């Protein structure tokens, strides 16, 4: 089954992406060629895959780990719905998830 992911880029444009189960959210966004730096390649070591998750989806995600929270400390414009996309592993239950790319820094 393919998983659908809706991503709003920094210009406000909406993109509908498809992912395989087991991919991370960062990987889907990066493979689609959208501007997500993901400098550390998904190792939770750079905070350049920062996204805002739509409120209705936020509660369905697992809580961020201590590592993820510590990395978010180094990001800017962090909000309550801020997450690192590389730390969100997709499965069927997350099909339809909506996120917005956080500003670049």
């Amino acid at each position, binding site marked *: 089954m393919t998983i659908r992911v809706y991503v709003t880029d920094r210009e406000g444009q909406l993109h509908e992406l498809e992912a395989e189960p087991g991919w991370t959210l960062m990987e889907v966004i990066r493979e689609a060629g959208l501007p997500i730096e993901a*400098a*550390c390649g998904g*190792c939770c*070591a*750079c*905070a*350049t895959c920062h996204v805002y998750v739509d409120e209705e989806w936020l509660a369905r995600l697992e809580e961020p780990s*201590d590592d993820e*929270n*510590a990395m*978010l*400390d*180094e*990001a*800017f*414009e*962090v909000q309550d719905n801020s997450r690192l996309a590389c730390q969100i592993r997709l499965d069927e239950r997350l099909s339809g998830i909506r996120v917005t790319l956080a*500003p*670049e*820094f």
Partner: protein
Amino acid sequence: MDRSEPIRTDMVIVGAGPVGLFAVFEAGLLGLRCHLVDNLDKPGGQCAELYPDKPIYDIPAIPVCTGQELIDRLMEQIRPFEPTFHLRQMAQTLERAEGGGWRLTTSAGTVFEAPVVVIAAGAGCFVPRRLPLPEAERFEGRSLFYAVRRRADFAGRRILVAGGGDSALDWLLTLEPEAEEIALVHRRDQFRAAPDSVARMRELVNAGRVRLIIGQIAGLEGEDGELEAVRIRTREGEVRHACDRLLAFYGLKMELGPLAHWGLELHEGLIRVDTEAFETNLPGVFAIGDICWYPGKLKLILSGFHEGALMAQKAFRYCRPEEKLVFRYTTSSTELQKRLGVRA
């Protein structure tokens, strides 16, 4: 201008990440002396800076080790070759030396002359992340800093420190006694700094000597580069915190930096090399590890080690043009074993 006598050596390596370190080994086996330059305060590059405690599983014959363990082992492996480290300085300029070879100058004014320069600069230099506010630039270097270069800049000042890691807390604790007043701003009431520093910070907060603000920086106010206040977004709304020094620690990011102006042929921000010797378009200047590009390049530590071994073969010819290079194994060669210090 400082015209100090240059350091003359065989090989200057820019970058003391895993690949630069192993290049010392490969060069050392061939009898070449190395000096390394890195703008960080310790060797290890990404492994030591970004993931010291995370496991690596794809180093041949080491089923698992952490980033820091890999660096510790490399340091042990290259010790017999007595490399010299020049840390906390950036390789700044590269030009032809008068008598042939290359002349490399660092941001600290150290000058090297060597027939071979090896660029093992990874994804570039680690530089502090800047505040992504349009007005930040006006204050940088005058009242907004990302590192403490001169403590005198902070003495007797009203300082705001931003961040929750070790750098932020260490400097908060160091500057507190000499500041007129000092505050800490962090996005949440949890700190990843060492528990001991966090405890000391909390004591100072309780004693009324440090003000702790939970929030994020939203804007800077001041004239002519002189900071007057920082606007902070908190749960209760925006607050204006009066201060005249801001010391912000938002981690590090990587930039190609000065290398971009050395006349090297680039490919999408990486240095193009041949795959025989990993030499750049400048003869005697090599590039290995994450910074180099050739068709099929993989950014793996393993690949960087291989690149270093081949590079050293050609580097030898620049350094010892009159000598013949004989291929030998460390297992059987008494000469190599002498260099390694395992045979008298």
